[in-house]
């Protein structure tokens, strides 16, 4: 069964321009910024953020679980359970149902992907990707 692990980082909802210019402070691991929406970003492994928006909502985000997939794992495990085509550009963030569960896919330049879902759906998604 796919092992989905808790993802940690910082979630920021702010003015898009401020979010674009945000400075993410990393810990020991590099930061990967997932732009869920123009005003909404989840910076994986970020420890701190500097964002020029005094009303920005900045929260530690621990509500997601995920698994890094090799291109072959993406093709074998996930793609057959999508009802939508993968985006062709790289990197890309796609959001939709995976095996009927709300999920997101961040696809890197090498074709590998991070499969993400809310922690509350983690067990359900893992069970469906057997």
């Amino acid at each position, binding site marked *: 069964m796919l092992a989905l692990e808790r993802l940690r980082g910082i979630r920021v909802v702010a003015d898009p321009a401020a979010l674009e210019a945000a400075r993410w402070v990393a810990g020991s691991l590099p930061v990967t910024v997932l732009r869920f929406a123009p005003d909404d970003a989840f910076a994986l492994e970020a420890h701190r953020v500097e964002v020029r*928006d005094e009303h920005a*909502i900045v*929260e530690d985000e*621990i509500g997601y679980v995920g698994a890094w997939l090799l291109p072959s794992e993406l093709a074998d495990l996930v*793609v*057959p359970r999508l009802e939508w085509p993968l985006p062709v550009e790289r990197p890309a963030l796609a959001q939709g149902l995976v095996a009927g569960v709300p999920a997101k896919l961040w696809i890197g330049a090498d074709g590998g992907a991070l499969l993400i879902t809310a922690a509350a759906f983690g067990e359900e998604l893992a069970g469906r990707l057997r």
Partner: protein
Amino acid sequence: MTERAPGRPEGFSPGRIVVDGRPLAFEPGDSVAVAMIRAKEVPAGGGTLCLAGDCGNCLAQVEGIAYARTCQTPARTGLRVVRHPADGLPSLPGVAAADPSANPPTLHFSLVRRVVDVAIVGGGRSGREAERDASRANDRSVLVLDANDGEEVAAVYPGPLLVARTRAGMLQVHAETVVIATGAAEIHPVCPGNDLAGLLTMGAAEALYAAGVQLPDAVALGTRPDGVPCAHLGGRLIRFEGAEGRVVAVVTANESTGAETRTPCSTVILGLGRAPRDLLARMAAAPEVTVVGAAAEDQALPPVPTDGIVCSCSGTRVADLEVAWDKGYANLELLKRATLAGLGTCQGGACLPHLRSWIAARQGEPPPPFTARPAARQITLGEAAADTFVDAFRRTPLHDEHVALGATMDRFGSWWRPWHYGDPIAEYWAVREAVSLGDVSTLGKLVASGPDVVEALERLFPCHVADIRPGRSRYALLLDERGHVMDDGMIVRETETRFVLSFTSSGAAYAAMWIRDWIERWGLRVHVLDRTMSLAAINVTGPLAGSLLKRAGLTDPPRFLGHLRANIAGVPCHVMRLSFTGEAAFELHHPIDRSVELWRGLLELGHDLGVRPHGLQALQGLRLEKGHVIVGMDTELDSTPRRLGMDWAVRMDKPWFVGQASLRRTAKVVDQRRLFGFTMAGAAPAEGSPIWSRGDIVGQVTGSWASPVLGHVVMLGWQRRAPFVDHVEIDGREAVLSPIPFYDPEGLRARA
């Protein structure tokens, strides 16, 4: 001596299928139908065989699945075939199970999804031409689905989306364009005796001959089959004659003189022409779908049928058409419904040309073919549902804790939630008399922040917002433009420009969308973040809740409707003082990764206080005693605050809020519906029970509970007819309209 494999029938040996329990040899490449004909058996009761999957004359039960086209089913060693009964229906899987209460065995059908540029249905000449054309364009992905390779397309849906059954499982193909190249089907004869065995279309005869199957005493009518040894007859087909269900002669008539000739035979080969095999084409009328080749060509209709079976799937005779037509079912769609012709397994594949010809003889013009809908091929429910999923239900971070405590889990509001932990009454008393924990992680939790946030919330909610001071909160309804209650929750003010909004478990996602949409529409400077999935919440409730939290580190608890941030049992929490149970209650919102730690810590700290968790069953009773409404359970889609008796939650003196104009308008009319509280003696009636008054049903119960603390039943229920009455009958007993809250109407316990 060799051992017989378990389950294999007596006499089984490799290279044989098992038909009605008897082994039957087959040759490589045989379909089940060909193997049966080779063994001088008939696949089904009779009728013309096409061996092309176009008719319903070779259906049998294969591996327990009824209505399988045996001509499309490759024979393989040990395959179990049971012929359908001559009269009556084939048995269904599971019906004859030893334990009727047991579920039938679960079958798993794999599903592969593909996304291609061009999908071509049909691997014949026109299909291959279409493939060549499509492949000329660079970078075009092309997929050909060929029924001869076992890829049977069952449906074409808008999209377009193709659903096919393949030998490897189900296949769904999302294509930019679809080309239907399904060719043409052979015309079946309609005349007396056309239900006899021994009748073959020309294509079927050629296929059997190619497979080395002998066709003794064969005669051919119409187009002569290629290479098949047979006598060729001229003239017009009149009837077939038979004995013991098999054809023994064919009678033809001279086209000029009408003189009949009887020709003895054992097999009749019929080359009667073709009709477009266009079921999928008719199903898929869309710009992205093109039809090519014979499937797109108009073909001459067969002669007008005058006698015999016109639809062998439904057993509809020409005489049945006449009766229905004379009764007024005088068009193709009505005739189909009245006689069932075309509604059977082949969906008109064999009978449609004859029906059109028959109607053309009465109306002068053939009608267009009738509507085609999925499925064009029989698929089982399991195949139709292959790899589809029920709605995904969420689990709170305490899910495993509930299970470990013996909870009965069930689905509520898109979450798995504990219904009870074995003793809902004890859970109830723990709330009323001691302290209890409830997992309310499922509640919606939104953060709203920005310079315009007060303005936005004033417009969104019907209560006042600006006067909620930081550190305080207020109960609020969420209304739509028509003034109907969509959801409810708390408005919790953290700072001048930042709020937390809570919503119901089932309504949270929609409420979040609703709020975002309005804020965007208004162009207000407000950020919104849904924290529902990131924060868990535990409700600590009961008269000893404060004592427990004091032990856990909360030395200065908030007053009723107050909130603060504090470490509880070492876990950072946003503590909100409110009450849904009617007792003192503190919601502890906290990060989901600390939830188990907090839950266990509170249970341990409160052990001597009698702390125990409560499930939804107890909570339902607790809230009913307080008369608290659950949106979606007690409310209906058009429930206004007035109908719910919740005018107090609406401030019409505000300048404007969503739904206000509608409420103002509807306030001028007498309302015919109202949610009331009722009480009665005895056992609690079932939720949904009708409410009677003077012999009429005037409403229904939305929630009922035999209150342990009050000693009688308390209920919420609708009256749907004014004037409202004080005494009603529910479940055959008298119930009395009663003011709510039923319990602690002054609210002293919640504020204690």
